């Protein structure tokens, strides 16, 4: 934990100007500021934030690569993460100042030269033997600020490195890995604070969104996601989350789950953070009557105090393991002739939600997968209309009471982020068509003792595909086009001013689609499954695309019929960078 006080003067940088879009003009050793991060969605000369802008729209106005030129796209270089440590690479690259920063599996961070792919430095977190990550050893990306590059580790630390040297500036324990906590999401930086959610440890925990001073790593505020728990601000107790025992019985609020493990987005206009929360604990809903607030919800939080400004609960009293953690993406649109500040989320439960992002009021919910067995729809007030017979039974009932439920607990959409095109006004949602048989399993064991678990089998809904990349019009909820993929989709989406949509497939391809029609225009096989999120930027007058390749994540952990679609996919661990050939 040595504090590095290097001052590194950087050479003059080529700064590209193109087509009226701004590029960061003062790239220097000082590094990105708060203001730079806030305007990162329109800065095409760099990729400064997870989600390509604090709102997480994953839209770039760049159009050199477009429907006409994309067929000529070729690799510029590839860079291996090396070693025996492969497995899932779910990271999104950060690009700044001639360097591409990517996180790798097993809590590693790499700095590659953005022009040649040569490695500048590599940081390997020394992970303790006892970590128990639930779903592979992934990491989803880093955050950049000033002279630092910051990421979270599998043993639940937040580590800030000097971005020029890879040396540790600070390293703080955010949670106890021995209690089952882990961290995989990219942190978010707002107002000089690193903001993240805890993850793992589904039982005996409560979720928390926390903010630390970006320069020191000291905790500024902590906001529990379960009502009845008291938050912290500047080392003192702040306010209680919600109202004690309003939607929980007894002391269940002390251990109610709701981990916001996927991180969040931020809207500078409303000055609100949007964090999604996980499902409630224990898993069997019959043991915890009530809505179980604020699990399976989006929370709008003040970035300076950690106060909750509003909440919306997607799956009240969840019984199917439908996390609400997915990214809530702010966008503006006209609804019933009125211009509105909105936000959208594609939920595990199979519905695509549009909310008023200023107050959390429900606007619409429409299915983005073909089958939602657990609810027939939503009321005007935004409550699900449950199909009661589809709720898994009480633990005292027999194993015989198996229900088939779709989506499966892996969700209509899992962690992989969707994108919003400012050009088409549509969202591009990486979804999966699968369901599950779920039943109470009377003979299971946990921690050396008998235990009442859930038995489940995940089943594809259709013989020819599981993955489905869909264009959704948020104004109508209509599906505008669908691209079907044999294996489940598990990577993020990028959309551009060139009228394109990019996403990766487990089969190894990075693919480009026409944003209007869904027609596949280009593909390239990276040699291993793509489960990362692609980005684009401009460098030396040329548009670049980058994506991580490396098969893994939660899908290979589940067997059954899903395994058949992915059994021939090999592991890897590489950064791939593409551009158009110089004519």
């Amino acid at each position, binding site marked *: 934990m040595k504090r590095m006080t290097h001052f590194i003067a950087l050479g003059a940088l080529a700064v590209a100007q193109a087509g009226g879009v701004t590029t960061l003009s003062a790239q220097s050793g000082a590094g990105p500021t708060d203001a730079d991060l806030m305007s990162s969605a329109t800065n095409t000369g760099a990729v400064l934030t997870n989600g390509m802008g604090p709102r997480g729209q994953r839209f770039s106005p760049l159009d050199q690569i477009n429907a006409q030129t994309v067929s000529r796209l070729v690799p510029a270089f590839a860079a291996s993460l090396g070693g025996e440590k492969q497995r899932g690479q779910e990271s999104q690259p950060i690009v700044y100042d001639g360097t591409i920063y990517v996180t790798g599996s*097993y809590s590693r961070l790499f700095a590659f030269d953005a022009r040649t792919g040569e490695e500048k430095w590599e940081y390997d977190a020394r992970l303790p033997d006892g970590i128990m990550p639930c779903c592979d050893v992934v990491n989803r990306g880093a955050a950049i600020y000033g002279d630092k590059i910051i990421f979270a580790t599998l043993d639940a630390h937040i580590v800030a490195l000097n971005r020029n040297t890879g040396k540790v500036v600070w390293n703080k324990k955010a949670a106890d890995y021995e209690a089952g906590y882990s961290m995989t999401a990219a942190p978010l930086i707002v107002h000089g604070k690193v903001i993240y959610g805890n993850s793992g440890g589904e039982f005996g925990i409560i979720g928390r969104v926390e903010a630390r001073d970006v320069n020191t790593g000291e905790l500024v505020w902590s906001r529990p996601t379960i009502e009845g728990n008291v938050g912290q601000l500047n080392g003192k107790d702040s306010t209680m989350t919600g109202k004690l025992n309003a939607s929980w019985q007894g002391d269940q609020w002390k251990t109610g789950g709701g981990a916001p493990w996927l991180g969040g987005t931020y809207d500078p206009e409303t000055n609100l953070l949007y964090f999604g929360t996980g499902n409630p604990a*224990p898993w069997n809903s019959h043991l915890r009557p009530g809505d179980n607030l604020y699990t399976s919800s989006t929370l709008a939080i003040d970035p300076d105090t950690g106060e909750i400004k509003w909440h919306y609960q997607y799956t009240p009293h969840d019984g199917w393991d439908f996390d609400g953690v997915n990214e809530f993406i702010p966008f503006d649109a006209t609804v019933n002739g009125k211009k509105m500040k909105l936000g959208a989320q594609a939920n595990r439960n199979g519905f695509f939600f549009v909310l008023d992002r200023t107050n959390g009021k429900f606007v619409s919910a429409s299915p983005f997968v073909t089958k939602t067995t657990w609810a027939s729809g939503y009321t005007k007030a935004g409550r699900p209309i449950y199909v009661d017979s589809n709720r898994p039974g009480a633990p005292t009932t027999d194993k015989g009471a198996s229900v088939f439920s779709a989506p499966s607990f892996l969700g209509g959409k899992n962690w992989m982020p969707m994108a919003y095109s400012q050009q088409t006004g549509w969202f591009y949602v990486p979804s999966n068509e699968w369901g599950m048989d779920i039943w109470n399993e009377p003979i299971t*064991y*946990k*921690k050396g003792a*008998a235990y009442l678990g859930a038995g489940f089998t995940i089943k594809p809904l259709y013989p020819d595909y599981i993955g489905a990349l869909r264009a959704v019009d948020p104004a109508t909820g209509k599906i505008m086009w669908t691209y079907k993929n044999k294996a489940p989709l598990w990577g993020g989406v990028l959309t551009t001013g060139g009228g394109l949509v990019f996403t990766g497939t487990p089969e190894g391809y990075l693919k480009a689609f026409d944003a209007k029609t869904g027609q596949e225009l280009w593909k390239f096989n990276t040699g291993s499954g793509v489960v990362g999120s692609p980005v684009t930027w401009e460098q030396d007058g040329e548009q670049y695309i980058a994506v991580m390749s490396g098969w893994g994540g939660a899908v290979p952990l589940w067997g059954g019929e899903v395994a058949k679609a992915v059994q021939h996919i090999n592991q890897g661990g590489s950064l791939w960078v593409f551009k158009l050939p110089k004519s």
Partner: protein
Amino acid sequence: MLLDRRRALALIGGGTAMLAVGGRAGAASLDKVIARGTLSIAVYRDFEPWSWREGDRLRGIDVELGELLASAIALRAEFLELIPGDDVAADLRNAVWRGSVVGQAPADVMMHVPVDRQLALANDRAVILGAYYRESFAMACNRDRVPDCEALPPAFKGRPLAAEIDSIPDFYLSSVSGGMLRSDVHHYPTGPAAVAAAAGQEADGVVATRAQIEHGLLAARDRLVQRKGPLPMMLSPGWNVGIAVKDDSRDLGDRLESVLAALVANGKIPAIFERYGVVYRPPAEA
């Protein structure tokens, strides 16, 4: 190829206990641990009264049993403390047949594995054997505050009841009698913490494993009384507890199983249980 042949021989040897114990028939794993001079033993971390740390010292029934097993075959015991995963299948993967996801090698043998046919079938990379105890769930009440620990569940309405979070005692108390005790359930991170709550001021009663209850009584017999009658509608009838080795180490497992049987017969294992206040119960016949 050689490995395959050795395994086949070991499997044949496993059929007759004497051959396996003799360890001559290409017994890869047993030979290996004997050559090494140590037996690495996985035990659960923070798992009183079976394996937990008191200050720096690792102690408990499983720890002493492991030491006894190792010394019976002239080996030194080494312990690997295991953080429990989502289920025992994860623990078997981490501690017995694959090792942890970050590269920690598995142990030679894991203690406290439920001996259950279905569990064994679902985890065929591990060999589960050597049942050494019969476990089940039990209840204790605070003597001063509960007039009758034998009463039916509805009689406990309004009394704080302690249970380990996300355990069968938790599910039992939260669902018995139509869930009428649900808001009375107080959750604790471990069974012993729940027992301590009932021995102290926080709870009137506790449901935990029988070993946890009896071990807790050792220091709190004046404050706690154990329920004698069965728990109505209890979700588990009990289970046998044994050991597990990797599928290619069946010869080691067979050897340890026969040592365990001898140590039960000569009273050394029951004596360990007694020191921790736990009544020794032999495993039930399948």
